[in-house]
């Protein structure tokens, strides 16, 4: 018998008094001791399934039909007190953001102790001993000391270990892990996944693994469920689903992921985005049809059932799925113009000091960094959080002042601090920030945002000129001109990131500093962005310093790569060469941590 089984499970949200389906007649089963991966773009309903398990749905959401059986009992119709008895005991959850999932004002010990009280342990000594054992099981050193600490004194990886220790402390039968490593560094991600696998084997736990990372899912899941718009479009053993996808959506997602091995190929940029909840109700037939490359007329009228034996797909034309492909993409030849480099950084250091007047401590965020970027060249900076990547970007933009070293931009020293140097830097270099949600002023219209650079330096630019420039920029970004009158909140995530990039390109800079601009985006939107950046590079001929933690994206986009570790550049070279034969231990660790090919 399956441990967890959804039978025709439907969840709806009430929008303006109208019930809009979020999950549609979902059927899935998780066997004891197995790992079931739920994959799909954001908004597909992955997390909603996890929430339905705990019956902690957001306000307005409710289960409208079907059942969710756990060990033969229906979680949906169970009395709340009884369900709460299961939570933390038989069913445990591992969260996405470990740093915020622990209460900041309670010690680790207090939170673990509370959990053991919930598990019915009465003796204080016994609980303490169990807490120490649990922390040791997740390979946290000095467990006794750790129990006295507060969450903010721990790193993200350590917090996640604590949460995993709590989750597995009761030897649960089911663990729901919702993007448990998304917020962590790649190297830590690998350790956390190993740890989960170890504990899962120890206890024979079944795991519901929710992720947007197909590569990670392929590595750790036994079975896969691909969700689109609240419905299962493909399910089956992971090997089969990723080995030979039956549904065009799975295939497109696969092709949107940059590869880590073999020849560099173009990315499949799924058009648009998954339709919003309301729009979905208006679609007859297959809900993927509007974005599907092999859709035919029949797809727009018939809702395809999930068909197949063992490996199922909901597609009328699944025989065409394998035909969807993208060609190899040659990297544009790296520019060797024999001129002076566009950017030349020599001996750059940044020291941050903190503490009181008498007990100052200094950290070298960037130490003695030297490199060059040629005109039109895309150079990546990779490294884990705290390695100084972002500080380097901020130093280049003059958002931080260097403690030592020099930055030459197009032959002029921009670290000398004169007004002329500042103006030169602004003309030559622009920055794109990571999170467009917070980088775009929510009270301004898109047209004004993208032409913001024209306000700089007291120059007078006529309203007409600004509107014209906004129109050009939006067209270049593949956005319609009507967008100019909207505010950022009226745009989708992908559109917002396009506006974010457009703003940096307004005055046609020669260097773009991009800090993690595709992380946090769905893989389809990420593919759109990467394709866009490559096109813009051809048209506008700018160089880019691309700060990223995602090595597959770097491999796809950048000519050269700088590897940073503890503020230093430990390795640099042509992307292919570095990835094929890494010289530094740290580079090898980084590369080894990326899950193998799909």
């Amino acid at each position, binding site marked *: 018998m399956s441990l967890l089984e959804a039978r025709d499970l439907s969840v709806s949200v009430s929008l303006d008094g109208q019930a809009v389906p979020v999950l549609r007649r979902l059927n899935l089963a998780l066997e004891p001791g197995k790992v079931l991966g739920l994959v799909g773009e954001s908004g597909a309903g992955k997390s909603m399934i996890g929430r339905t398990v705990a019956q902690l749905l957001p306000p307005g959401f409710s289960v409208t039909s079907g059942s969710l059986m756990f060990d033969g009992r229906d979680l949906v119709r169970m009395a709340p007190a009884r369900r709460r008895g299961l939570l933390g005991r038989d069913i445990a959850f591992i969260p996405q953001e470990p740093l915020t999932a622990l209460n900041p004002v309670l010690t680790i010990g207090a939170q673990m102790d509370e959990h053991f009280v919930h598990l019915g342990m009465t003796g204080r000594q016994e609980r303490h001993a169990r807490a120490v054992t649990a922390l040791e099981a997740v390979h946290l050193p000095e467990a006794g000391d750790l129990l006295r600490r507060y969450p903010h*004194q721990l790193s993200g990886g350590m917090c996640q270990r604590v949460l995993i220790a709590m989750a597995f402390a009761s030897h649960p039968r089911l663990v729901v892990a919702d993007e448990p490593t998304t917020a962590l560094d790649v190297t830590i991600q690998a350790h956390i996944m190993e740890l989960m696998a170890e504990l899962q084997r120890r206890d024979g736990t079944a795991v519901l693994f929710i992720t947007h990372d197909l590569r990670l899912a392929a590595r750790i899941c036994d079975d896969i469920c691909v969700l689109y718009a609240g419905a299962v479009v493909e399910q089956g053993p992971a090997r089969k689903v990723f080995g030979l996808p039956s549904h065009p959506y799975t295939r497109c997602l696969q092709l949107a992921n940059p590869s880590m091995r073999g020849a560099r190929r173009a990315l499949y940029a799924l058009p648009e985005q998954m339709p919003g909840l309301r729009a979905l109700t208006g679609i007859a037939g297959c809900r993927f049809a509007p974005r599907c490359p092999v859709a035919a007329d029949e797809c727009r009228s018939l809702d395809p059932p999930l068909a197949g034996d063992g490996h199922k797909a909901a597609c009328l034309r699944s025989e065409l799925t394998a035909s969807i492909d993208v060609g190899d993409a040659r990297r544009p030849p790296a520019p060797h113009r024999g001129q002076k480099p566009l950017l030349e950084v020599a001996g750059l250091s940044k020291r941050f000091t903190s503490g009181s007047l008498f007990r100052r401590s200094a950290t070298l965020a960037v130490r003695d960094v030297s490199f060059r970027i040629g005109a039109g060249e895309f150079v990546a900076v990779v490294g884990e959080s705290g390695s100084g990547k972002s500080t380097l970007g901020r130093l280049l933009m003059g958002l931080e002042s260097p403690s030592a070293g020099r930055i030459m931009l197009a032959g002029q020293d921009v670290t000398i601090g004169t007004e002329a140097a500042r103006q030169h830097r602004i003309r030559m270099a622009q920055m794109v920030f990571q999170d467009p949600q917070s980088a775009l002023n929510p009270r301004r219209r898109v047209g004004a945002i993208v032409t913001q650079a024209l306000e700089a330096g007291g120059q007078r630019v006529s309203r007409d000129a600004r509107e014209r420039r906004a129109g050009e920029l939006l067209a270049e970004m593949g956005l319609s001109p009507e967008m100019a009158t909207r505010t950022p909140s009226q745009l989708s995530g992908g559109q917002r990131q396009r506006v974010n990039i457009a703003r940096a390109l307004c005055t046609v800079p020669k260097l773009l500093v991009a800090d993690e601009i595709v992380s946090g985006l769905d893989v389809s939107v990420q593919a759109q962005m990467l394709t866009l950046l490559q096109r813009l590079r051809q048209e506008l001929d700018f160089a880019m310093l691309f700060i990223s933690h995602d090595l597959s994206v770097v491999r796809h986009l950048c000519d050269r790569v700088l590897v940073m570790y503890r503020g230093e550049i430990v390795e640099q070279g042509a992307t292919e060469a570095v990835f094929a034969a890494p010289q530094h231990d740290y580079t090898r660790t980084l590369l080894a941590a990326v899950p193998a090919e799909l």
Partner: protein
Amino acid sequence: MILLATLGRRLLVAVPILLVVSVLLFVALRVLPVDPAAMSMPPNATRDEIEGARRQMGLDRPLPEQYAIWLGHAVHGDFGRSIHLRRDVLPLIGQTLPGTIELAVCAMVVASVLGLAGGLLLFSLRGRAAEAVAETGTTLLMSIPEFLWALLFIFVFGVLLQAMPFTGRLDPGLERPVVTGFLLLDALLVGRVDVFRSAAVHLLLPAVALGLAFAPPIMRVLRSSLLDVYHEDYIRQARLRGVSETRILLRHALKNAILPTLTLMGVQFGFLFGGSLLVEVIYSYPGMGNLMVDAVRNADLPIIQLVGLTYCVVVLLINSLVDGLYLVLNPRLRKR
């Protein structure tokens, strides 16, 4: 350790602040169009006699020199003599400050208890029909100032029901024990239950009137910070571990939501101290407020000067105390 260091640093900063405030007070009081010398003389005094008094008081010297003299005396504990009462100023403050502190602290306790309980109630009503009623209720409460409560209480409990006394600090027949100056404490120290009861009853109406006026903002802030905290991941994660709702509210959410509330309460306590002035006058309560009102009426500059400084010291002390409490309650501020 870190707590002591913070408090120490706070007190160090307090010295320049007090100097600046004393200068401001000094200058402000000297530019007022009042002549303390003339007011201290009998009405039939001649111009020369007034001029002589001015010289004697040092009012004919330049302002910086006057300030230097005042400061020189002040650091030796001499804050001058009251012009009107013809007594040293410092003992006057010593006699009236404890009463005001007693009133303010009791009022703050009332405000805190009502504010926290009201905030929890408002929060627990979220999303229900009663929420709108409760919101209207707090808005109404918020718009009633302390002097209105004071007058209302006198009318209802003092005049209509005749259940409570509403003047002074003690029944007339009782003798006041003096140990620390804090009446409630002194009564307990000398073991006089009757005095304690009488003092407490006298304190009740002014303290509740003052506390009621300051409770509604605490309710509001606690409610909204609880709403914020309930969106945090750790609340959801606690639920997912099967922690009960009561425990989530009282142990997980309240401990976080209390922090912004505490900041507000610290600010409020300063205002409350100033707000006690009106209540003291209404209840003829012999505290610093009444002393101040009399001093202003008589242009008694030395008293006004010292009351102003005392007020500043109290606010600084409260701020340090709140900072200390913050350190205790918020481990994120205790850096290693």
